[in-house]
């Protein structure tokens, strides 16, 4: 069994979470961006952040899944990259970090 589809799933998870985190930090830094992410008034900017994060994850999974469909990929670098992206996602959704960029 080729490991490409599995590697695609793991890496896509990291990509989705990193994009979600970066969007969250940008929303803190740029008030207009935060307002633009308010796709649901009761939920606020979290509505746009989460939908973008989930869409980024699914699109990344679809693209990587197609590219690596029948391929055997070097698993270790993929895992390392996924862990780095996950760390980016966790850091950029941590309030003491994104508050550093908060717009006044």
């Amino acid at each position, binding site marked *: *069994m080729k490991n490409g*589809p*599995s590697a695609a*799933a*793991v890496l*896509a*998870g990291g990509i*989705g*979470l990193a994009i*979600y*985190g970066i969007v*969250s930090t940008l929303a803190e830094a740029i008030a207009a961006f935060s307002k633009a992410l308010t796709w*649901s008034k*009761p*939920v*606020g900017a*979290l*509505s746009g*952040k*989460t939908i973008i*994060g*989930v869409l980024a*994850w699914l699109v990344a999974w679809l693209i990587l899944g197609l590219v690596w469909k029948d391929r055997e990929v070097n*698993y270790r670098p993929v*895992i390392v990259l996924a862990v780095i992206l*996950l760390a980016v*996602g*966790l850091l950029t*959704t*941590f*309030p*003491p970090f994104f508050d550093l960029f908060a717009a006044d």
Partner: protein
Amino acid sequence: MAFSLREYWTAIHGMALGFGFILFFTASLALLLTLQPGFLTPKGIRTNVILLKISGLVTAILSWLAVIAGTWIVYPWYRATPPSGTTDLSGFPRAHLLATPPVSGWHSFGMEWKEHLGWVAPILVTVAAYLIFRYSEKLVEERKIVWTVFVILCIAFVASGIVGVLGAIITKEAPVI
């Protein structure tokens, strides 16, 4: 003692879905770690994998339901803005926390972290469930994949645990009523 609609939804979000997630996560982890050729007969492996698929899928479904209910149903009640001149902020948890300096950090740090971190778990658990379904009984031979699933589930569990504890503390300080 009667619960309000908001309290029911808060309980569904945190207790039914949240604790359900923890229960099925634990089952998934136990089934995953016992999935070794030396531990189980071929029939035992087949049974283990079926149960692992069920628990992995249920864990993923519960985590999605928990964050969707939390974000789209409970959170709007939490962050509702009180009409100007409102002095009783008991129905407006966010405003209540922010207006009370000793506990305002439970919003600015606690809730801010919880609302973001919560979405990490469903994505990770879905990836783990996919790997479980893709490899099925071949997981026995694929130790790298087993450890990948194990680590992904553990990260998701730690994230959910933090979210759950923050939710419990915030609800104690400023319940959604």
